[in-house]
């Protein structure tokens, strides 16, 4: 272990002895993080364009279904979980059904924007023109505008209006019946008449222009400077991009070490091949982590959020860096010249980073590009960062992404270690 650490420290000393490396590690990433973060902040925050909202329908009636449909229509950014969950499990539910306790916990931890609970008897109350409460849980300040709350209020307002219309129509019907000495309607006919009044009222209210417009930038926090939200995108994005530049650059260094015979000299020392390889992997893993820390430190100074689970954030960083380190070792044996290595670093970094959402959120690209983007490890890392930073997720929420990155790392390492050229 001591030998491995000695090699890592020596290689880091050599890396930092070259001033050009400091420009690539420090100056350019810092500048780009600031510029991109500020720019994205000015155009809307760069955060997710979908809001995860848990919804529990204890009524399961036609009217509660209408309420849900109305909610969807009021704000297409809302993803009602579990009803609207997608193949990528945007709701982060896994295999488990959504229970009230877990849903409350998700809302309280910020992993969902809100929880809406439609109580049993909702339809009966509306039809009977009776008071009923819909439970709403959210971390957002109820005094500040929230896109979910605004949508819900708008929908409930319409439901309330329709209910009032129904109540008035019912009373009118009863009064007319009494005044004209007509025989009273049987209950089934009366209920059918009132329901048709309710539904027609809903339809007419729905046809009105939508009262709520969704804005991401200052939806949850009116007072916050929009540019700081931009760093929630640019921090992880630029961090991941420059991790690729720095770590993939190791391909050229490994080639140079073989050419200048320092690698072979290590082989002639009383060290096993595994120790040498572990040390070289350790060097690039360390450099990748240093790169993330530099960019995140800039992000922190500029107001970037880090979510509420630092160990999970560290785990995502480590998994991504490990994956890129493995990619470096898988490609290094096939590189013939330092020029070829530099070209490949540029090609891979500048294609995989935007493809995976390092420059802009994947949610603003077409569906097929979003799917295609997941061939890039950056997409998995950015998904996880988004879960942690924007949705206050925890370790369990990002386990799938960490799993994918580690699995890719394992496959690439097997390939890289088997074909690693010592001679």
């Amino acid at each position: 272990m001591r030998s491995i650490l000695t090699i890592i420290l020596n290689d880091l000393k050599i890396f930092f002895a070259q001033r050009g490396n400091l420009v690539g590690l420090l100056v350019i990433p810092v500048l780009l993080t600031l510029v991109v973060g500020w720019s994205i902040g000015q155009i809307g925050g760069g955060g997710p364009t979908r809001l995860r909202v848990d919804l529990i329908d204890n009524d399961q009636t036609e009217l509660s279904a209408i309420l849900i449909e109305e909610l969807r229509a009021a704000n297409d950014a809302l993803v009602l979980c579990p009803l609207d969950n997608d193949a990528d499990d945007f709701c982060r539910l896994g295999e488990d059904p959504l229970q009230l306790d877990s849903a409350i916990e998700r809302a309280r931890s910020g992993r969902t924007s809100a929880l809406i609970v439609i109580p049993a008897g909702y339809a009966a109350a509306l039809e009977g023109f009776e008071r009923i409460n819909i439970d709403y849980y959210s971390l957002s300040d109820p005094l500040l505008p929230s896109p979910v709350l605004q949508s819900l209020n708008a929908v409930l307002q319409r439901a309330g209006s329709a209910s009032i219309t129904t109540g008035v129509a019912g009373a009118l019907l009863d009064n007319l019946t009494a005044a004209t000495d007509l025989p009273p309607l049987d209950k089934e006919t009366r209920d059918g008449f009132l329901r048709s009044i309710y539904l027609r009222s809903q339809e007419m209210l729905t046809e009105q222009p939508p009262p709520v417009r969704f804005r991401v930038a200052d939806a949850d926090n009116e007072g916050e400077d929009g540019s700081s939200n931009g760093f929630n995108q640019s921090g992880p994005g630029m961090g991941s991009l420059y991790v690729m530049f720095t770590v993939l650059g190791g391909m050229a260094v490994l080639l140079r070490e073989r050419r200048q015979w320092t690698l072979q000299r290590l082989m002639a020392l009383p060290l096993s091949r595994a120790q040498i390889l572990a040390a070289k992997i350790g060097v690039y893993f360390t450099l990748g982590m240093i790169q993330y820390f530099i960019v995140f430190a800039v992000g922190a100074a500029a107001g970037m959020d880090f979510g509420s689970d630092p160990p999970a954030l560290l785990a995502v960083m480590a998994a991504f860096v490990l994956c890129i380190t493995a990619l470096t070792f898988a490609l290094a044996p096939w590189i013939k010249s330092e020029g070829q290595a530099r070209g490949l670093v540029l090609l891979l970094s500048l294609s995989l980073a935007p493809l995976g959402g390092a420059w802009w959120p994947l949610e603003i690209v077409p569906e097929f590009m979003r799917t295609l983007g997941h061939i890039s490890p950056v997409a998995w890392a950015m998904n996880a960062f988004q879960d942690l930073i924007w949705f206050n997720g925890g370790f369990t929420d990002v386990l799938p992404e960490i799993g994918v990155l580690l699995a890719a790392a394992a496959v690439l390492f097997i390939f890289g270690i088997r074909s690693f050229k010592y001679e």
Partner: protein
Amino acid sequence: MQLMVETRNLRKTYSRPDGSTIEAVKGVDLEIRQGEIFSLLGPNGAGKTTTISMISGLVTPTEGDATIGGFSITTQSMQAKRLMGFVPQEIALYPELSARQNLAFFGRMYGLGGKALSRRVYELLEFVDLADRQKDRIDTFSGGMKRRVNLAAGLLNSPPLIYMDEPTVGIDPQSRRRILDTVKLLRDEQGMTVLYTTHLMEEAEELSDRVGIMDHGEIIAMGTQAELTQQVGEEDRLEFTIGAQEIAEDLVERVQHQTAGVTRILSNPPEQISDDSSESTPARLIIFAKRGRTALPQIIQTLDAADVDIQSVAVREPDLEAVFLALTGRALRD
């Protein structure tokens, strides 16, 4: 005397991209005794570096094994490597670090540390006469200075055995002399065993207790210089450099039959230097003769009579070059 290095049927085969194979080393058997300088002499591409790379654990043999102080390099490589120092042909140093930082790093890899490491690094810098440049980066050094640090890096663990793979390639005569003297010092004062590869006959002759001559991946002769030169008898070698002209077959026969003591003649025709060049190397005539100096006037007279343009003549007594020539029909530098 105890054996320090022993190889048995050491063989290395490489695969080419087209699927064919090339056998770089073809079953080498070596025995190197403790405290001797053993030179592997051979032209470029003979397999010397591949052999030394296998013995030092850099390259895994395709077949066979080598033992260092009784430890197998394939199955007990850690123990074997602790007994050896390695000075590769390339300057295997980090150019961005100073001489001292380089030596300190490699010293730490041998488990040295603290004052012992500082002392050893300083001793070696003194030994290679670079203590005053210890803080300078390697990339500011001349070729000869780099070679000396390269040598020092191979001595950090005070090994009983050191491999040196053509350590004088591409350096000035002064640095070369210093390195050759250092190699002798290592044997004479520290009792070190040295395995030295070279394609320069003069170096092998000056340094070696025993020599192994390698060609096309095989050891074609091995022994002390006296034992080897005995193989070519007592013949002198008369080397004629001739202008760009072909030597006719009948002239060669005439020289051989008309001059007493001439045993055989090798004729190397002139060769174009490259496809793009009209210049060519001069032709050479190598004549083996007993009592060469006595035969010389008669040979010159015969060549003169045939209008051969003699540019230079050298009379060489039996040496390793002659052995190589006798065994392969080619000069070492060819």
